[in-house]
């Protein structure tokens, strides 16, 4: 792993974060304002994978959620492709999520009773891909991730933690997003499946995806990440 050297200029960065800050105002607890991030900068080029590190509660997930538009920024810019997520209208963020920015979260959130194959194919159908093509691609990923075919017609809500995570990963990799956010993608996996996921990440890098991830699995992190960025420096207790 090579640490540091951020040469990502504004022109070739796929994800570019500048002077980002985040506060939470708790209106029902006396209006307390909690500042959790200030002056965060991060730049990720196409084909590059950056790992976020820092102690639990340091703001790794908060930063990922802000890039995805799930948390609102208090100030600063989050450019993904040509969209500034911090200022974009909801429908611009929806289009960004559909076409450009993928997110593999730790937990699977799906409509109950929808078959696994359709859960994985859904991002492709939303892009207008024909049903059978979308299902073929989904099947291909499920096979790679060792989800037995007997389970494809069942809803993943009843699956084990590791199986749910693999379904989530298959769904996140179904479309070749130019930018990807990965939250602990190998956490609940055995060695074989972990290797498959790491291969998927490497393949995404080779095709030019810019990736930001949280990996507690340091061996996995060292294999796929180009750099690590400690977000402790982004929290407001520290001078950024």
């Amino acid at each position, binding site marked *: 792993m090579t640490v540091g050297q951020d040469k990502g200029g504004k022109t070739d960065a796929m994800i570019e974060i500048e002077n980002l800050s985040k506060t*939470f*105002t*708790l*209106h*029902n607890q006396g209006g307390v304002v909690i500042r959790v991030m200030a002056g965060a900068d991060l730049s990720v080029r196409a084909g590059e994978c950056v790992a976020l590190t820092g102690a639990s509660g340091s703001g790794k997930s908060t930063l990922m*959620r802000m890039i995805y*538009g*799930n*948390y*609102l920024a208090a100030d600063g810019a989050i450019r993904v492709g040509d969209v500034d997520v911090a200022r974009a209208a*909801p*429908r611009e*963020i*929806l289009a960004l999520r559909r076409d450009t920015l993928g997110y593999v979260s730790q937990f699977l*959130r799906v*409509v*109950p*009773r*929808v078959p696994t194959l359709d859960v994985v194919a859904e991002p492709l*159908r*939303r892009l207008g891909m024909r049903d059978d093509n979308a299902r073929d691609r989904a099947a291909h990923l499920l096979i790679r991730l060792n989800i037995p075919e007997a389970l494809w017609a069942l809803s993943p809500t009843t699956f084990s933690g590791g199986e749910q995570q693999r379904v989530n990963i298959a769904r996140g990799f179904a479309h070749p997003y130019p930018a990807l956010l990965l939250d602990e993608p190998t956490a609940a996996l055995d060695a074989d499946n972990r290797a498959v996921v790491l291969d998927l990440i490497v393949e995404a890098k080779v095709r030019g995806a810019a990736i930001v991830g949280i990996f507690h699995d340091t061996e996995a992190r060292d294999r796929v990440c180009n750099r690590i960025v400690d977000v402790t420096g982004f929290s407001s207790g520290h001078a950024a």
Partner: protein
Amino acid sequence: MTPLLSVEGLNKTYGAHLGCRDVGLDLFPGEVLGIVGESGSGKTTVLNCMAGHLVPDRGRVVFDTRAKGPRDVLTMSESERRMLGRTDWAFVHQNARDGLRMGVSAGGNVGERLMAVGARNYGRIRQTAEDWLTRVEIDAARIDDRPTTFSGGMQQRLQIARNLVTGPRLVFMDEPTGGLDVSVQARLLDLLRGLVRDMGLSAIIVTHDLAVVRLLADRLLVMKSGEVVEHGLTDQVLDDPQHGYTQLLVSSVLQA
């Protein structure tokens, strides 16, 4: 992009009682908008004003019509508005009995809306009705049965088929999954999501169920005491609510 529906300054009072105040929103083609809030927050008033079931005291409800472009629905003639209600608009009631004709067969319920827009060939109407029953997962063999013999979930699916058979562009839904068993709700949610995606529908869904809007709506409007207190991307509003009332609403949900 021209919004399919654009609402401005909607006001409605019931005597001294406030229904809604200064409600505005834009809905774009293919978008699903959720309106949440507790009972009495004004969400159903807003829906009924937009859909033409209630006359607001003030405001504009501009719909991008196929033939004449953006038109204020509130100043249209009654016949024009009725035509819109039969063609480009659909309304799914919480209680399926309000949206169905209970004395008419399932096939008749679906076919009636086709006939209202000029379909006359009996065989073709029946065929289309059969297709739609299958699409909403009702056995086509039940086509001649009355909805009174259907379960609550089936009635709701029949109401959806009746509404969508004419290929509307905008669907208003008032608590579409309210009063149904949880397992029936899930099936209906999946059905609605598929139809919205495949038909490119736009929809406005009023509900008090935050789990339903999380799975169905792209954007969310939060109402309290007749006013919109917060709006934004659905998952953002639910996960990082900015207004005190939304924070209270989100934190009050029982975790299953």
